[in-house]
């Protein structure tokens, strides 16, 4: 059997057989693939640490016909904070699920790999704002995989920016007041919202820390981007439902005790 080594990140973990786990791994050179981590659910397994959601590791694998087998792993990062905070884990899971849903198996994806790595690293920082990081990821990821939206002019007629104050998820970019009728999914995006959408596309996560989560611009940009993602992803994402559920639970219990992703700073 052929042995291959690669650096990868665990996007998904499923239990398999008595004590095994099947991992969905994303790597730069090998793209996305599945590998079984034998015995990873046993407490004594040397594989248990690596066979965890969000773990980044140098892995050695036996190449199988349909499924690889993880032979050994050197953990590079466990993203401990992402794993121990409900909001970070929820948005981190969303990032993993979106990546999984939109990448093909066994197609080298170095750019996507480094984006996922930098995104999880950003989520892992103490001051991270998970909702903003996830928004940035949506924009950067879609742009990277061939759905870069036009954010300078109307995609239909080319009208320049201040006039193009709608976003058409279906058309894939800004629309002017005349052309927005072409796209029934279009939503308004004001000056600030358009600026925010562009910032999400080009700025590194560290430079998105000033983004406010309650303003009109944020809500407009998020609505536009969420619809854009919805249109591109063919399946409904469980993690997104989870985030919505937990957020609405947080609103209901706001006066009560706890609940919600971020009790002290509500994200919606």
């Amino acid at each position, binding site marked *: 059997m052929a042995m291959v080594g690669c650096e990868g990140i665990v996007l*998904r*973990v499923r239990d398999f*057989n*008595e004590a095994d786990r099947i991992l969905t791994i994303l790597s730069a050179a090998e793209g996305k693939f599945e590998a079984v981590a034998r015995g990873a659910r046993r*407490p*004594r397994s*040397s*594989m*248990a*640490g*690596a066979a*965890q*959601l*969000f*773990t980044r590791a140098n892995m050695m694998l036996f190449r199988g016909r349909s499924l690889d087998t993880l032979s050994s*792993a*050197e*953990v590079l990062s*466990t993203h401990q904070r992402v*794993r*121990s*905070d*409900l909001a970070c*884990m*929820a948005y981190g*899971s*969303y990032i*993993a*699920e979106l990546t999984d849903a939109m990448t093909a198996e066994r197609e080298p994806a170095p750019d996507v790999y480094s984006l996922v790595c930098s995104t999880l690293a950003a989520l892992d920082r103490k001051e991270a704002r998970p909702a903003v990081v996830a928004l940035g990821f949506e924009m950067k990821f879609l742009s990277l995989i061939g759905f870069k939206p036009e954010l300078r002019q109307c995609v239909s007629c080319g009208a320049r920016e201040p006039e193009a104050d709608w976003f058409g998820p279906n058309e894939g970019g800004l629309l002017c007041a005349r052309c927005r009728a072409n796209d029934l999914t279009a939503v308004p995006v004001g000056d600030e919202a358009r600026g925010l959408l562009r910032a999400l596309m080009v700025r590194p996560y560290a430079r998105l820390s000033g983004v406010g989560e309650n303003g009109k611009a944020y809500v407009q940009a998020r609505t536009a981007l969420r619809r854009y993602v919805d249109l591109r992803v063919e399946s409904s994402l*469980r*993690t997104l*439902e*989870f*985030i919505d*559920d*937990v957020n609405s*639970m947080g609103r209901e219990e706001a006066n009560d*005790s*706890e*609940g919600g992703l971020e009790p002290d700073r509500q994200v919606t």
Partner: protein
Amino acid sequence: MQFYAEPLSRLIDELRRLPGVGAKTGQRLAFHLLAMAPADVQRLADTMVEARRRITDCSICGNLTEADPCVTCSDPSRDRSCICVVERPEDVIAMERTREYRGVYHVLGAAISPMEGVGPGDIRLAELVNRVKAGGVTEIIVATNPNTEGEVTAVYIANLLRPLGVRVSRIAHGVPVGGDLEYADEVTLARALEGRRVM
């Protein structure tokens, strides 16, 4: 294409609904059942129906039980001020095997998992909060699994219960007994270091 007689293919379909049973295993189990004596198959079927009918969830701790409340919850020698929180009924059995623990339990039913769509509202957390609010509880030991889902559930529980004035602790995860330090992986070792005790 019809490979199997109709009752046989139905049997295989039913067996395949069990966890870990695929097409191959389903077929193997079905052929095995057909090779058994009719009385033995009858006994197996009766036992399954009987168990399903008589076993329910304990209304206090959520563990599987025949009588409600369960044996542990109704045992007067158990320390009711200490609740050990676990994910599944199997975990209660594992804890009981240690013969060390004298408190009571709370079975969540699952761990929080965004990937599986299991939110805080889907597991028995409200019941846990109510037990603590009812009074008499001073310590909560969180014994969820040491994986991503178990960890985040533990942190969530700690944040939920701390304002209620109970002590919340997490069982230590680290180097397993009998394991050589040099063979333990980085994550396990880091966890063991975190959970170190004063001697």
